[in-house]
């Protein structure tokens, strides 16, 4: 899990302390995004990015690198990447299976054929309690894992990146699931999703003035009027 690694020490090949684990970068594209870089906090305001190849091990005690600090290459930031702490942890998601909005409490990382991949997220109460330092309570609470294939990041960068990634789950939803997603997201993001996945439907909806922001309040006012008309009975 991601939260147990954050803030833990990063040691170089010689055992010298480089800094602490600040974040992990993953590359979107494959079904389960592989970890590509480790962001190390080296001082109060300084950080450096180490390519994942240079990381020998990652566990509860921290990360160990293959090289000494001077030989370490820097990993440049890539366009199609997410930072797990910044863009995924504690962010709002749409859970396709449960058809609801929820929030990421921890990120599940799994070793798969020699590479570390983002497998899913935990939205249960257990990781929240664990992160608050309430371990004993956490053991009695539930973990609720949602597969990376079954969710859409509802906010900011994650939402935008998933729209552009053809393999992202939102591109293979059933019409029912898609309707639920569009209805649950904030209105502007909902229409972006429809635009990306089903341009024809989005155009039809615009034609009917269901989705355009200019039309929506009037549409709603119509509902209120109907409600009032029904009220006297």
């Amino acid at each position: 899990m991601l939260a147990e690694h954050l803030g833990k020490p990063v040691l170089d090949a010689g055992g010298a302390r480089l800094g602490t684990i600040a974040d992990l970068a993953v590359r979107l594209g494959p079904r389960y995004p592989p970890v590509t870089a480790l962001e190390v906090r080296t001082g109060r305001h300084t950080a450096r990015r180490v390519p994942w190849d240079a990381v020998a091990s990652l566990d509860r005690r921290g990360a160990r690198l293959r090289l000494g600090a001077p030989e370490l290459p820097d990993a440049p930031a890539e366009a199609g990447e997410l930072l797990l702490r910044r863009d995924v942890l504690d962010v709002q998601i749409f859970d396709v299976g449960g058809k609801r909005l929820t929030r990421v409490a921890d990120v599940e990382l799994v070793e798969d054929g020699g590479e570390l991949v983002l497998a899913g997220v935990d939205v249960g109460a257990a990781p929240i309690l664990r992160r608050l330092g309430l371990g004993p309570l956490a053991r009695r609470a539930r973990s609720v894992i949602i597969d990376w294939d079954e969710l859409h990041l509802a906010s900011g960068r994650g939402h935008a990146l998933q729209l552009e990634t053809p393999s992202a789950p939102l591109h293979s939803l059933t019409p029912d699931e898609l309707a639920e997603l569009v209805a649950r997201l904030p209105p502007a993001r909902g229409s972006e999703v429809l635009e990306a996945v089903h341009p024809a439907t989005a155009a039809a909806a615009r034609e009917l003035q269901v989705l355009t922001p200019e039309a929506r309040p009037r549409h709603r006012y119509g509902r209120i009027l109907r409600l009032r008309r029904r009220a006297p009975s």
Partner: protein
Amino acid sequence: MLRRSGLVALLAVVGPGVLAGLSDDDAPGITTYSILGADYGYRLLWILLLSTVALVLFHELGARMGVVTGQGLAGLIRERYGVRWAALGVASLLVANVGTTCAEFAGVAASGDLAGVTRYLSVPAAAIGVSALVLRGTFHRIEHVFLLASTIFATYIASGLIAGPHWSQVGRGLAVPDLPLTRGALLAATATVGTTLAPWGLAFIQSYAVDKRLTPADLRYERIDVVTGAVMTGVIGLFIVVACAETLYPAGISIHDAGDAARALRPLAGNLSSTLFGAGLLGASLLAASILPLSTAYSVSEALGREAALDDSPREAPVFYGTYALVVVAAVAIVLVPGAPLVPILFLSQALNAVLLLPLVVFIYGISRDRELMGEHASGRLGSAASLAVIGLLALCVSALGILSVLPLLT
């Protein structure tokens, strides 16, 4: 293409600003304004004006953040500052809100007393009434009942007008900053700021704007809603001060709660003024008693990641409705237990509200400037400077309150 007029668009957007604003004129608010008028006449009116400006500023920020990000305040704090801050914030909100809800039900009890109805009848009836409304209604129906209920505040304007205001003195009080450097005056000033700009009001306006599914295109109208709500809040506060300043202040009558004020008004301003004051207290308490648990329920669900909406059923949103029930039941129980230390509970919850307000506005300031979250709607330099000024004022008030509470213990 059909065109809609500006008025219809505005009417469709109205709600968050007006409701969050007016519910700040709740039972503790009315008490504070009454004491302000009865003890200091018009001298401290300028503080009410400043508070109203601060209310406009931060309610606009709250509404904008909700509309742009589609998330409530507790959820945004968790996304931007982590789960610890969110948990700490929501835990304090929960305690402070239960305390404040007690104050609202105490307000219901007080206005029941004025009409000769026992609190053992009036309080449970009020609790069942507001819960039934929120649990059984749809979003739009609930909103319209709330907006209708808020017209009861007109009674305060009437009550103030009956008292016959001296407008030149009112104008002077608003324009001339004058603060007697006594413990009582500082306390009254701090309480006025703290009761006008309440933490749960800030959380509520944002969650409510999200639940109403407003879009950035609505922001223009939403600003009108916010300013209207805040100005109405200030004007009603002004008339409460007027009613007390014109009658109780010259007579030298000091009061302790809003029920006192209504009783004291009778011989001085007549039965009508007193009855209107009492009716206003009932309406204000009921409105805030329905909005406070709602605000708490939104905040707790957001922080735990169980995002919920008024249109969801209790089965779909157990955390949301569970929190609502918990707040109402706890508050009613505390108010009805014979011999419960009601005065300390009310005082402590007000103090907690004041202390909680400071970190909350700092979070709001940080989030509103965050381009990552807010995009083109992030606060610019001018807005940030104005927010910082309010934060400075609040810090001053909170530290004054802290010093004033600790000082008597030392001497």
